[in-house]
């Protein structure tokens, strides 16, 4: 018996009122806990409300900032953008008095920052954290860390901050009467009319000089021996026995090099598609094409035809032609029918030298300061964090298969599905070759490479003379080996945006998705390789003006050495490879190079059999400035017709979970007829595209929906949309796989790999759409509605290609917006906007528009 009990037993009368006492004690504790939970929830609610108000205020301020490049921060609290921020914070519940009392402009280094605070109480000391109930402040530019957009255009960004003093309910009685909550939002208003640093608009520009014999080749420099038949084994790119034409199109290549129409230059002029300082060997079996679309549009550029100004070579250099089949075994002969002097005409497949070779020197500015040092990265299908030599550059926990920008010694991908975050990848070293025969690879795993990789040239001594494939190295190697790999990890889904949401990846097949990236290879490194074993690779540079560290250029590769950039991808037409093998942006090798260059295998299946609205594949969309260029593989595709602006990932606005990576690449191309042009957009996500919501908008016209024309007659005001009364009808609540036989006015069905490929036609005014003959095609992994609602859906690496073809509109510029959503039902969408110069055909676009987006 305890002391207490005995005591009570001795004095029973003490028990009287015992329950009351105990209850009183418990009550205090209960109230305390209840108060704690209620107050916490209430604080959370106020914080959320503050965030909401900050978002609204920042967006409103962004609208006032947009439209022009801001060269300085807003001057004071009476600026329209400041007023908008203040008013919308107030309209959404955080009311303050706007005055200039706390306006502060401070210059530190090259940055001038304006900050101010407004309070609901008079007489508060500026910057004070007490004495008020509500405070709203702005900062232009925002406080660090700045997003890439805000680094590029610091005065086009504004941060809105809200502080609020919350009266506590119950814990107030415990001596904590108030708690401060804070929220912040940053907006970016993209300026219009900005010009950026990008090279002269020639599609391919090559530096390697011509020499009469190999004996005249300068030491340490690769040259072409005119006495030898060009062969891969001789394309060794060293002095001894080298045989490297400055430009070489293999017999299988049938190169189609589409330049850019120069009519946007002032004064309008013709621009040659390719300029070569040295000998060119053109062996395409059905005729190479070097097409400047001047006057005819890109549709005039088709294989085997000569249109506009083709190429120009320097004096002393010789163009060699061998266009009949099997030309690879005989010595090419100079193109006899090509004009010897500028201004001549030609009748053969080679139509060139209409103009003189001109020297162009452009050097990209790449600022690598501030990049994290990441060591080495060897990916064998595991998480990125486990594959890094240091933990510095580990991705966020929810994105374990995402590679982060930084300074790397080297990067090797032997297996796995990975994304690269937008940013600069500065490569300083050379990746080692794997030396393990079992387990996982410890370097580049060449074991699966076959004869399909005969074209690899990635050492200073070439593939044969360097001892075959085992010697091949690079700064960044993306291939697929046969050694062990990590298991594929499916994406997990919790509450949308919640902590249990995790992006999947890894596994065996190599699938790379890299929007908005810049790879710089330092002089101590080598180049870039993507082998034909790679299942799918899509890389695009940042949009024009989007990255200050590269001068706003759409730069994809900057190789500061004599290495090779070798671009290839799977030729197997598996469903997952379609649509993604694209390299978009400027590919640059230092103008002081003495060897190396760019090798492209345009057989990479960027589109199945030309499906998707075009007639050729766009292996490379962009520009090459390099020492040499070799074109392997069947059919050719090098498209610079959209200019620098068409080669980049455009401005995107997203909602819900960050999903800007669902937009992989986009290009505006001319055709397929002389009066139309096409916007081709590629989509990639772990969910299939929700085609019900997709629309495209040309200039300020009404949006054109992919699914809008299905109803006849169109539903009236208040009618159910979409109707759920028949198969194949788009619906959010009735998700389904599109059928093999689409209803009118759709055409199409199922493509060769079993994916839906439908084309919407807009033929009737007022019912279906614009009635201008435009069409909207979506091919690939898409469904009606949210894939997440489709129990039979297989989620994974979903890709699709969207092509909107429309008549060339009137006006000096054309602005195109596209809206699309993924299938995860988390409210995720992308709105992307492009503006191109409009001359009837695509041109180097100054790709800007006054758009506003929340950055953070």
């Amino acid at each position, binding site marked *: 018996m305890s002391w207490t009990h005995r005591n009570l037993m001795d004095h*029973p009368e003490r*028990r*009287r009122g*015992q*329950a*009351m006492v105990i*209850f009183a004690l418990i009550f205090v504790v*209960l109230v305390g806990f*209840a108060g704690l*939970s*209620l107050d916490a*929830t*209430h604080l*959370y*609610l106020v914080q*959320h*409300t503050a*965030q*909401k*108000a900050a*978002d*609204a205020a920042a*967006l*409103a301020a962004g609208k006032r900032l947009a439209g022009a490049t801001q060269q300085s921060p807003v001057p004071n609290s009476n600026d329209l953008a400041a007023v908008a921020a*203040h*008013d*919308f914070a*107030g*309209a*959404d519940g955080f*009311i*303050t008095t*706007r005055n200039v009392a706390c306006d502060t402009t401070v210059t530190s280094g090259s940055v001038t920052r304006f900050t101010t605070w407004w309070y609901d109480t008079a007489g508060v000391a500026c910057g004070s954290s007490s004495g008020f109930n509500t405070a709203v402040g702005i900062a232009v530019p925002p406080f660090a860390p700045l997003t890439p957009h805000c680094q590029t255009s610091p005065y086009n960004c504004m941060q809105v901050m809200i502080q609020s003093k919350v009266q506590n309910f119950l814990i107030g009685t415990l001596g904590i009467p108030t708690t401060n909550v804070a929220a912040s939002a940053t907006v970016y208003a993209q300026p219009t009319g900005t010009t950026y640093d990008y090279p002269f608009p020639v599609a391919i520009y090559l530096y390697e000089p011509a020499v009469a014999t190999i004996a005249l080749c300068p030491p340490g420099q690769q040259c072409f021996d005119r006495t030898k038949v060009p062969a891969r084994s001789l394309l060794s790119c060293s002095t001894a026995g080298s045989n490297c034409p400055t430009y070489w199109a293999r017999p299988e290549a049938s190169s189609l090099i589409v330049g850019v129409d120069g009519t946007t230059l002032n004064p309008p002029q013709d621009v040659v598609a390719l300029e070569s300082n040295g000998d060119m060997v053109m062996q395409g079996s059905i005729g190479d094409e070097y097409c400047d679309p001047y006057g005819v549009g890109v549709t005039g550029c088709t294989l085997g035809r000569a249109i506009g100004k083709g190429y120009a070579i320097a004096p002393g250099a010789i163009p060699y032609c061998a266009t009949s089949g099997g030309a690879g075994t005989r010595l090419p002969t100079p193109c006899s029918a090509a004009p010897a002097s500028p201004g001549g005409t030609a009748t053969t497949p080679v139509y060139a030298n209409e103009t003189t070779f001109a020297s162009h020197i452009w050097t990209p500015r790449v600022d690598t300061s501030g990049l994290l040092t990441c060591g080495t990265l060897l990916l064998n299908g595991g998480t990125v964090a486990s594959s890094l030599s240091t933990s510095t550059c580990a991705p966020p926990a929810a994105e374990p298969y995402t590679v982060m920008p930084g300074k790397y010694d080297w990067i090797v991908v032997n297996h796995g599905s990975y994304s690269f975050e937008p940013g600069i990848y500065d490569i300083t070293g050379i990746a080692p070759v794997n030396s393990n025969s079992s387990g996982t690879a410890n370097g580049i795993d060449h074991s699966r490479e076959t004869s399909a990789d005969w074209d690899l040239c990635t050492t200073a001594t070439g593939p044969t003379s360097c001892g075959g494939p085992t010697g091949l190295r690079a700064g960044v190697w993306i291939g697929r080996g046969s050694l062990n790999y990590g298991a594929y990890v499916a994406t997990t889904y919790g*509450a*949308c945006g*919640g902590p249990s949401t995790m992006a999947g990846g890894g596994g065996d097949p190599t699938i790379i998705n890299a929007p908005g990236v810049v790879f710089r290879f330092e002089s101590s490194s080598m180049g870039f390789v993507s082998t034909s074993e790679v299942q799918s690779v899509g890389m695009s540079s940042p949009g024009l003006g989007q990255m200050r560290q590269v001068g706003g250029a759409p730069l994809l590769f900057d190789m500061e050495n004599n290495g090779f950039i070798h671009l290839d991808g799977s030729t197997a037409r598996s469903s997952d490879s379609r649509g993604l093998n694209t390299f978009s942006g400027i590919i640059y090798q230092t103008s002081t190079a003495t060897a190396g260059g760019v090798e492209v295998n345009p057989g990479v299946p960027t589109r199945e059999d030309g499906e998707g609205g075009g007639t050729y594949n766009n292996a490379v969309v962009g520009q090459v400035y390099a020492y040499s260029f070799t074109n392997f593989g069947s059919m050719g595709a090098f498209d610079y017709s959209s200019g620098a602006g068409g080669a980049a990932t455009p401005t995107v*606005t997203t*909602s*819900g979970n960050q999903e800007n990576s669902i937009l992989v690449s986009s290009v505006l191309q001319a055709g397929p007829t002389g009066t139309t042009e096409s916007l081709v957009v590629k989509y990639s996500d772990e969910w299939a595209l929700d085609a019900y*919501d997709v629309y495209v908008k040309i200039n*300020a016209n*009404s*949006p054109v929906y992919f699914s809008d024309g299905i109803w006849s007659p169109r539903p*009236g*005001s*208040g*009618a*159910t*949309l*979409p109707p*759920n009364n028949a198969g194949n009808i788009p*619906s*959010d*609540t009735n998700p389904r796989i599109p059928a093999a036989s689409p209803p009118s006015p759709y055409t199409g069905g199922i493509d060769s790999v079993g994916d839906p490929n439908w084309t919407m036609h807009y033929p009737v005014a007022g019912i279906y759409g614009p009635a201008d003959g435009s069409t909207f095609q979506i091919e690939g992994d898409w469904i009606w509605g949210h894939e997440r609602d489709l129990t039979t859906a297989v989620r994974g690496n979903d890709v699709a290609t969207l092509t909107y073809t429309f008549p060339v509109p009137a006006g000096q510029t054309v602005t195109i917006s596209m*809206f699309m959503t993924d299938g995860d*039902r*988390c*409210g995720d969408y992308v709105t992307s906007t492009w503006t191109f110069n409009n001359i009837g055909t695509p041109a180097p676009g100054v790709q800007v528009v006054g758009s*506003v987006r*929340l950055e953070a």
Partner: protein
Amino acid sequence: MSPKQRRRRAQALVETALILPVLVLLMLGSADLGRAFYLKLEMSGASRAGMRMAVLGGVVDIGNAVRSEPNSAIPNTASAWGSMAPGGTNADCTSNTQHCGDPTGCRPGSASAWGGVDQQACFAVRTCLTWANGGCAGYSAWGVRPNAGADQAVEVFVVYRFLPATPLIANFAGGTGTFYLTAQTLGLQLY
């Protein structure tokens, strides 16, 4: 058992009988209040998502943005959203000819706003013609969105019909025993 002991036991019973309702009320009440806060938060999130969508254009699908946001709290079903559910009369605002949200502004008792017995939530959209610090100074009718280039604000209003579990609290809410938890967000049109 002595009479004294019996008296004590009876006394404890009475004390407990007195205290228990208070305790139960306290527990139920705090559970209700917590639930109300949580749903209010979800409504706030939904109106924020709707606003962010609404400012982008005149025909963007505000309804989908609103309904997709409070994922864990309110299912995107016909019974939960009534005529604002996917496919419903007032659900989607993807053209100028359609109603955008409830035309009565989710008024309590309105048949269009609260048609179904099980209906939990309602949203409505309107244009703010002029605004000031502290709120909107002049509204359009419900269901009207700003015309392109008008430089007006758009309000997304979301309401949750909250049924308290605690009897006493429900009595405070009048005849229906229902509270309406509201959230609205005002944003400047960007199009």
